[in-house]
Every structure is written in structure tokens, then in C-alpha cells.
């Protein structure tokens, strides 16, 4: 609140002082006040032209695998749990084939696909409707394709939730800290506040430190421990030699609601093993 008040006071002060011909005030308000010489991206940071993900749910062996992947995200991002679907915050979650791909129903689909839970998260669309509708640029598309949220700026109008065809966005109907035990908080990462929208950010904060998204890391750890192939891949969709492109090149994959033209960057590998 003090931010707004300060801005208000600035403007109020400026109009008063401008009347008195206070040039210093204009200079004071103008642009960069810090003494910094420059700001830059961490050299360890992972970069890409268009980040994307490929998910092969057939590689999830047990319910526990799903839980580990989801927990990896929930725990580091301080996702609250209110125990009801009304107030629920979801960054990554699971649902059935039917619900994940409601526009591609297929009653005779392989049992293994039909029964298997699919992992859902923000699609980080190439042409994101949520960004198009946001009245404050609180949600915006970064140069690397990530659809990012600036919770500092969100006014909580929820237009983006109406616009997202993938149900990827959650609103803080309640103070998120009420759904989070203090001992479970990750003190390295913020919570959110009441009345703002949030969603998966492809772990922008981890990429900046040179780490891949937490869910993918968890999935690859599971594969390593079990000596199997990983279920989730992450990488630059613009780079043919990236992990994700290599997986997609060899396997048949689909996306959620491609007919809407949003261009999801999350791909689902369906059936047909590499050697099949």
C-alpha cells in the first residue's frame, strides 16, 4: 500500500512543485536513480529462444512418481493447500486423458493411455491469450518464451483466468499463508498475497541460477534412481539438438487444444515407444 501512496505523493508533490518551477523534481523523478553501472543476467543462467517441455506419461511408473514431481514444485514455490477445490492453487497437477484433451475424445484409445494420469501445467503458449487480455501487463511473455507473472502488478481482475483455455491459472481467494504451514515454507522463495493470480513460471528463478525446472529435475532423478528413461524433458524448442527436440523428433506427440492457435510449448508423448 505504501508503494501506491508513495506514487500518489510523488505525483501530488510534482504537480505542486512544478507550479513553483522546480526542475530538480523532474530530474528526481526521471528514470534511473540508482548509482548502478549496470545490471545483467547471471552468466550461469540457462537461456533459450523458446523454452518447451515434453512429457511422456507412460514413463511414470507409480503414483509415488507423480507425487514426487508435483511435490518438488509445490514445496519450493510455497503452494498452499486449503483442502478444497474452490480455493485451490495449482501450478502442476494431474488429470485424466479425457479431461486433458477434451477436444480429442477417443473411446477406443489404448487402456494404458486412458487410465494414465496426465501431468498438467501452464503451456507457456507462443501466442498466449492471458497476456493479450491482461490490462496491466502483469502477465507478459519473456523473450525466451516463458509466460511470466509479475505478482507485484496484478490487480486481480481475473481476466486472464477467463482467457486461458487450459485452466492453468489460480487466484488467491484467501491469504495463501493460511494454507501453508510455517515450517513448510521455502524461505528462499516468496509466497503470494491475497487477490493476485498465479501459475507455473517454468521455474524462471531456477533457470536464472542455471537449474532446470524442479518438476523435470525430480522426474530425471526418479529415472536415474530406477535406471529407466525420464518422463519429463525440458529444453529449447528452437534448438534441434536440445533434449526436448531430440525426444520429440523420435516420438509421436500431441498438444492440448492446438486448434485454438495459442501454440502450447508443452508436448505430450503418446504411446509408440522409441523401439516400437
Amino acid at each position, binding site marked *: 500500500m505504501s508503494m501506491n501512496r508513495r506514487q500518489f505523493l510523488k505525483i501530488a508533490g510534482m504537480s505542486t512543485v512544478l507550479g513553483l518551477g522546480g526542475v530538480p523534481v523532474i530530474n528526481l523523478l526521471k528514470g534511473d536513480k540508482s548509482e548502478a553501472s549496470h545490471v545483467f543476467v547471471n552468466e550461469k543462467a540457462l537461456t533459450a529462444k523458446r523454452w518447451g517441455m515434453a512429457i511422456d506419461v507412460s514413463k511414470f511408473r507409480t503414483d509415488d512418481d507423480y507425487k514426487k514431481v508435483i511435490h518438488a514444485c509445490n514445496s519450493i514455490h510455497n503452494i498452499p493447500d486449503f483442502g478444497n477445490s*474452490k480455493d485451490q492453487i495449482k501450478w502442476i497437477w494431474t488429470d485424466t486423458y479425457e479431461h486433458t484433451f477434451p477436444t480429442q475424445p477417443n473411446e477406443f484409445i489404448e487402456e494404458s493411455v486412458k487410465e494414465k494420469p496426465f501431468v498438467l501445467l501452464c503451456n507457456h503458449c507462443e501466442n498466449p491469450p492471458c497476456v493479450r487480455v491482461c490490462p496491466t501487463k502483469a502477465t507478459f511473455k519473456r523473450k525466451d518464451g516463458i509466460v511470466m507473472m509479475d505478482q507485484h502488478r496484478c*490487480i486481480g481482475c481475473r481476466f486472464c483466468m*477467463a482467457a486461458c483455455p487450459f485452466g492453468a491459472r489460480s487466484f488467491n481467494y*484467501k491469504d495463501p499463508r493460511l494454507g501453508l504451514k510455517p515450517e513448510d515454507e521455502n524461505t528462499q522463495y516468496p509466497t503470494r498475497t491475497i487477490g493476485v493470480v498465479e501459475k507455473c513460471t517454468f521455474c524462471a528463478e531456477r533457470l536464472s541460477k542455471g537449474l532446470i525446472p524442479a518438476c523435470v529435475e525430480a522426474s530425471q532423478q526418479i529415472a536415474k534412481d530406477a535406471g529407466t528413461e525420464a518422463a519429463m524433458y525440458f529444453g529449447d524448442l528452437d534448438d534441434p539438438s536440445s533434449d526436448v527436440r531430440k525426444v520429440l523428433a523420435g516420438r509421436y506427440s500431441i498438444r492440448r487444444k492446438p486448434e485454438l492457435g495459442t501454440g502450447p510449448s508443452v508436448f505430450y508423448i503418446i504411446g509408440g515407444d522409441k523401439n516400437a
Partner: protein
Amino acid sequence: MLEKALQGSRKYWTWIFFLLLIVGNGFINYLYQFKHGLGITGMSRDVSWGLYIGQFTFLVGVAASAVMLVIPHYLHDFKKFGKIVILGEFLAVAAVTMCVTFIFVDLGQPMRVLNVILHPTPNSILFWDAVVLNGYLGLNIVIGWMTLSADRKGIKPPAWVKPLIYVSIPWAFSIHTVTAFLYAGLPGRHFWLSAIMAARFLASAFAGGPALLIILSLIVRKLTKFDPGKEPIQAVGKIVTYAMIANVFLLGLEFFTAFYSQIPGEMNSFKYLYVGFEGHDKLVPLMWTSSILAIVSLPLLIVPSWRKKEGVLATACVALFISLWIDKGFGLVIGGFVPNPFEGVTEYWPTLREASIALGVWALGFLVLTLLYKIAITVREQTAGIEIEH
């Protein structure tokens, strides 16, 4: 002229305090919402807009309808509207006030509302909605005030008011078109993704708004010495009739496209609203109430000998207004969210607190309306018999 709102009978003040009481109750409930968040409403992750945005949408229509008096009066020189055009303009002011308040109470972070101006985003329809709504509010305040104070002095309004009146005509269309665009451009929301959405909005607005104006005119005649006149009311009645026919026709078009094409996404929301979807049917009784009221109102309006009886016209207008209020103020918004993007169903029903806040906003609107009408009517009573052309 403002002082005229401060002199009134006992009845007038009782009404004012009654409204203030409801506004106060809404405000106290809003403070609770402000502290605890929108979790106190019936809205959810799946149905993320509810009563507030529904009422906002409906009231934009009421606001836009002032143009139905302005066009005949100023473009077609239909003199009979001279006395009541001010009632339309002031109704628009009250309606836009409610719209803006409904948007405000719907925000999760209301203290940041100025971000819309600090970070203007022309690709967002909501940005444009804020622009056109505030512009329309300003236009109607200025036009209404200038013409009325000119009337009081028995002179013509200043020349610069005329261009503003002409601007207000397309502007009225713009507010409801832009509001329709909030919905009609969202991929994956089949119920809203319709090219005739703006046309439907305008048709329902030009039926509902003038219907309310007829009811208000009849109340004004009963309570004050100012008579809006039989003929203008009949003329507005005709406007209501044509607009309602257009509205029902356009809704029929939506039904045809959905059910003849048999595309599930196109049909599901309609099914949910009118017969229930996968066992969820909370809104069905409400939507049928709306449909029956619409069906009842149509013959009453269409048959000339019925419409000419003011009692029948009033009944038809009340039925029609309630019908559209349900359809647009509730069904339209909720229907767009059901089923959700996963073809699942989460139902919505407003909570008591949410309804109290909404009622408070309505009371605030009626308070503004009462004060403005009091001023306009007092002026009209004093200048009775003198007609100023403008």
C-alpha cells in the same frame, strides 16, 4: 442546482436513508471482503467471475440505453422526448456509477486499480472498457447538467454541448460493444465466442434499459407533479418491443448454431443452463424463469391494444427487465465458465455477503439516481409549460 437534492419531503428523506442503510450494509460487508479476500464469495478457481461481473455487464446495457432517447430526440427531432431525455441521461450516469463500482469490488487488489492507467495496455479489452466507461460517464454528466441548467434559466444550452451529444451516440454503442468484446474474444470459451455477442448485448440493452425507464417514468408521475407524458412512454414502449424481439431472435440464432451443428463445446453451456449438465442443474430454474418472463412479456408488448394500456405495458416491462437481469446479469457469465476447460462442472452460487455487497452497489446507484432525478424533476416542475428547444 445541487441544493434541490437537499430539500425534500419526509418520504424523500426516508427513501434516502433507507438506501444509505443498504449502502452501509454493503460497505461493511465489502470491508470484510477487502480484508479476507474474494474467498468470501461463491467464486472459485473454475468460475472465476460471478455476480459482480454479471451485474456490471447488465448495467452497461442499462447505461447504453440512454441513446435510445437521444437518437430520436436529437437526430430525428422527435420533440416529445424533450422532457424525458434527461431521465435517460441521468439513468446512464447512475448505471455507469454502478458498473465502475462493481468492477472495483470484483478486484482482488483494488488498491492497485490505477495500474490500469499507470501501465496502459491497448491490447487489453479491459483497458478500453475503462476508457469508454469513464468517458461515457463524463459525457452524460456534462450533457445532462448543461441542458438541465439551461432549461432552468429558460435559455438554450451552450453551443458546445451539441457536439458532445452527437459524440455520446456512437459512444453509447461503444461501451456495450467493448463490454461484449471482453467475452467474445476468448479462445476456448465457446459460450461467449460468438460474433453476434455485441449485437445481442445491444439488443438486450435497448430492451432492458428503456423498460426500466418506463417503470421509472411511471413512478415519477405517481410521486411528483412532473408528468413525463403518455406519448413519450408509448414511444419508448415501441423501442422496447422491437429491441426485445431482436434480442429473442438473436438468442434463437445462438441456439440454432449450437444444436444444429451438434458440436459438444457449443452445446454444453446451453445444456447446463437450461436442462442441466452431467447432473448439475443449479441454474436451470432461474434460466427458465427468465425464459418464461421473456415469453410472457413479448405478446403484451407486441399487441398494440395491450401495449397502449399503461398497466399492461408496466407489467410487460417489469417481466422483461427481470428476465434480462437473470439472463445477462447471471446466466451469461456463469454459463461461460461451465463446463470448465477440462469439461468438468463446478457450480456457482453467490454467498450472502457477496449478495449484500451487490445489493449495496445497486443501492448506491439508486441513491445517485434519486438525487439526480430529484434535481431534474424539481427543475421540470418549476418550468412546467415552458418548452426549451435543444
